[in-house]
């Protein structure tokens, strides 16, 4: 029976090429956009092979200082994080790091790169694939060893892809020995240095600076305890210039909260806006498909009348039309996955999306399937119900 529905659906879709094309176009475009959105959000908040502990991480990259009239937002300094955040008891691990842009000359050419000052824990939290060499250890950080990790893109563009480990590169007037090359995770040049080379900020005794900390919780349930300990520590912190700022507050976010904050106000609000946007976005073409489907009732009225006259029950007819709609929608879903793949490649090229963002990811895949089926039912059930309720004689008159 089911095989029959599929066969008939296939024939009908194939013979009504124009309708099929229009429907597929709308469905694919919609689903593609939704899938890309899902991938984008997932790449910001979900665990990935390179950043495997996101769901257990708490990020501290903002503090607020209270002046007599209001709270002022700042990026924390190394001094502050080292003194108050690193010694916390609750986290399993704390990593402190900073990111900035630098320029350097190599072979008489100027390059601009994303540079990260990190501690040794950074490499325990992240799981970069090393093409050659390896990362620096705690000891090398402690001694400010002149070493550096670069990415594949630098190796390819500056040294033509030849092995780089052991070569030297001058960064901020210091010659660093390359000890590792990691696979690309973005389209820019990337450099990692032991943070002890950051002579300017490291010894500054003040609370505002340009560092961030990543705190790894023992498990997801422990995240709230970490946040509580952070607040306790902040409330006991000794203020450096009490006349100016009387209190400090630590902003601690999970990856989801961080993402939400990067777009707007509260996490709940942002999530509900995103979800409503997605539903609304699907609703428009779904309503359109409902419309197309209903107007198709007229074209197919005689078929419905005939089927009823020869023994199709309303239930059977509903099933038939829903199967048809699921088929076309799943097919559209397939096309949209391909389109999303191409689109992602383009977006990665323009650096809108991290190179690590991945379509082939069970979370994304599952969500896409659910979205597709939701769309199929959204646009198929009502017209099917309407079709099945048609009076046979009226249907045959068409």
């Amino acid at each position, binding site marked *: 029976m089911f*095989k029959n529905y599929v066969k*008939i659906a296939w*024939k009908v879709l194939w013979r009504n090429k124009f309708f099929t094309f229009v429907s597929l176009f709308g469905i694919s475009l919609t689903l593609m956009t939704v899938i890309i959105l899902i991938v984008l959000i997932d790449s910001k908040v979900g665990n990935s092979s390179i950043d495997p502990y996101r769901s257990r991480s708490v990020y501290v990259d903002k503090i607020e200082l209270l002046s007599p009239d209001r709270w002022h937002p700042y990026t924390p300094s190394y001094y502050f994080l080292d003194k108050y955040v690193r010694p916390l008891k609750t986290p399993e691990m704390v990593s402190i790091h900073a990111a900035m842009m630098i320029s350097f000359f190599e072979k008489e050419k100027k390059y601009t790169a994303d540079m990260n000052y990190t501690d040794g824990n950074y490499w325990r939290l992240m799981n970069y694939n090393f093409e050659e060499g390896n990362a620096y250890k705690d000891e090398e950080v402690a001694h400010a060893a002149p070493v550096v990790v670069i990415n594949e893109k630098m190796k390819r563009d500056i040294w033509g892809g030849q092995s780089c480990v052991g070569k030297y590169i001058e960064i901020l007037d210091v010659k660093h020995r390359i000890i590792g090359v990691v696979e690309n995770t973005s389209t820019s040049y990337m450099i990692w240095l032991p943070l002890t080379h950051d002579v300017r900020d490291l010894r500054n005794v003040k609370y505002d600076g340009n560092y961030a900390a990543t705190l790894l919780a023992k498990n997801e349930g422990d995240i709230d305890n970490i946040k509580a300990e952070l607040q306790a520590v902040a409330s006991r912190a000794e203020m450096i210039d009490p006349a100016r700022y009387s209190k400090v507050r630590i902003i601690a976010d999970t990856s989801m909260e961080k993402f939400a904050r990067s777009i707007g106000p509260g996490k709940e609000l942002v999530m509900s806006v995103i979800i409503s946007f997605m539903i609304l976005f699907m609703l428009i073409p779904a309503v359109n498909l409902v419309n197309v489907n209903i107007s198709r009732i007229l074209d197919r009225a005689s078929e419905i009348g*005939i089927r009823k*006259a*020869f023994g199709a029950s*309303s239930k059977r007819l509903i099933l038939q039309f829903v199967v048809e709609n699921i088929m076309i929608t799943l097919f559209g879903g397939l096309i949209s996955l391909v389109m999303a793949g191409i689109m992602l490649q383009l977006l990665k090229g323009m650096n809108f999306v991290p190179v690590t963002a991945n379509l082939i990811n069970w979370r994304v895949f599952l969500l896409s399937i659910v979205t597709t089926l939701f769309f199929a039912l959204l646009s198929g059930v009502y017209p099917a119900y309407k079709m099945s309720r048609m009076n046979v*004689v009226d249907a*045959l008159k068409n």
Partner: protein
Amino acid sequence: MISLKAIEKVYRTDTIETVALNNINININKGEFVSIMGPSGCGKSTLLNIMGLLDIPSRGEVQIDGKPVVSFKDAELAELRNRKLGFIFQSYHLINDLNVLDNTELPLIYRKISGAERKRRAMEALTKVGLSARAKHYPGQLSGGQRQRVAIARAIVGQPEIILADEPTGNLDSVMGNEIMKILNTLTQDDKVTIVMVTHDEQIARQTSRLIRLYDGSLVN
């Protein structure tokens, strides 16, 4: 088999009320070949549709084998139409998206029959109407007479007890009309199928066992 008791059918629109059928009492017995005649608009199609459970009367009762039809649920009605009845329409009503074979096997799709068996029976029915060679054609590629023969094959493929035909020869020339009549006659004589047929043609009506005349929604004796 089918009995109509005090059937009335009224169509209401905003402005007018049409009485399409008025106090109709008919019994159709097993094995009969009944023809229905009457001027255009007198209610012949309406009557046939009510007999075939495609339409419901405004008043009165339709019984199938002694059971009132109103007591059946949607699924039971579908089953009755599927097993007991076979329709032939004046304008063929084939599904254009399906080829001749798929059109013919339609009633069998709604039964638990394997695909191979459906194909076999559909081919058999097509052979009876002399169209087995056109099985893979689409309705759009056939002449009117051929389409009507496909419609007949579809009506007989499920071996229903009753065939209801609304002007099966109405759109055909007399040669083709006689062909169709030959097939219907064979069905009543060899297979003991009950047939109720609407026709405009006295010549054709004379070949049947009983004639019902309708005028302005009422039976005429």
